[in-house]
């Protein structure tokens, strides 16, 4: 259950941004979570809702944009089929994860004076 520690890091980032922008409150938080990031979206949501009280995010919903994993051949760039051996069927190149490992704070909507 490392999602709690991820939420703590998320609040620290949000509070830092809120201070820079002199925000009164945060209205919405958007994060991007990859399928192969090791973070479970449902657990992250639960951890966020549990800990947002008494933070600047107390009223702000968390929107989680899920990013599907996509492997491509590192030689020819072809997309590799899911669930198969991660080698390119046409050129034999090894796979490279093109997307799906992100744990990103994307956007904060905040109320400013």
């Amino acid at each position, binding site marked *: 259950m490392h999602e709690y520690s991820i939420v703590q890091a998320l609040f620290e980032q949000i509070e830092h941004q809120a201070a820079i922008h002199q925000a009164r409150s945060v209205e919405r938080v958007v994060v991007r979570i990859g399928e192969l990031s090791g973070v479970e979206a449902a657990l992250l949501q639960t951890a966020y809702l549990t800990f947002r009280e008494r933070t600047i995010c107390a009223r702000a919903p968390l929107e989680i944009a899920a990013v599907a994993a996509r492997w491509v051949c590192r030689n020819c760039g072809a997309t590799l089929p899911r669930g198969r051996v*991660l080698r390119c069927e046409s050129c034999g190149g090894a796979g490279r994860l093109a997307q799906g490992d992100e744990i990103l704070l994307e956007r904060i909507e905040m109320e400013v004076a």
Partner: protein
Amino acid sequence: MCGTCGCVETDKTVVPVDVHERILSGNERQAEHNRHHFRDSCVLAVNVMGSPGAGKTALLEATARALEGRRGIGALAGDLATENDADRLRGAGIRARSITTGMACHLDAAMVHHALHHMAWNDLDYLFIENVGNLVCPAVYDLGQAANVVLLAVTEGEDKPLKYPVMFNRADLVLITKIDLLPHLPEISLPRIHDALARVMPAPRVLELSARTGAGLHAWIDWLMEQERSVADGPLHQVQLVPRPR
């Protein structure tokens, strides 16, 4: 004041701020700091991960036996509650310190940094960071290591890589352990384990060994020595737990 109903109007202005920052960037900065320390002291730091009971401590004990004092070995042992692993490691001649994590299911870069302040380590050749036994959480946290090694015991079943793709995807080396038990496990097939690994790792590097019998240990020691040569100039294969360049 609103002229119609008397309510207090506020000038509420909501602005979107695009951040695009990695949520774990704080941990990544700390990990990079640790990595510089290791590199400056020419210490090969290896993050050893695997399920509880995969044989992480036994591997380190066997490694110390196989090296017969030719390398200075230290270990930081992540443990929820006990000193047992660190005691075993010290018994094998390894300079060891526990990192008691309490309820935390993984080590992070700050815990490792803190432990480095409480153990002499910069004269070592190898520093093993024995992570908490867990195939999920430790994969998410960069500790500043030069390489990730993931253990998979033959008793765990062939499909573990498919069930825990993130952990195996981040491994620079997978060690299939307890191969001395294979004669008792007719249902387990090594080729099927290798096939599962190839579905989650693009260029799997896999060794099979038994810490009990010593089978396969020489290839593991060779791998360590190969990594060691790359430490002075910076690791050849630096582990990136952050999104890779596209």
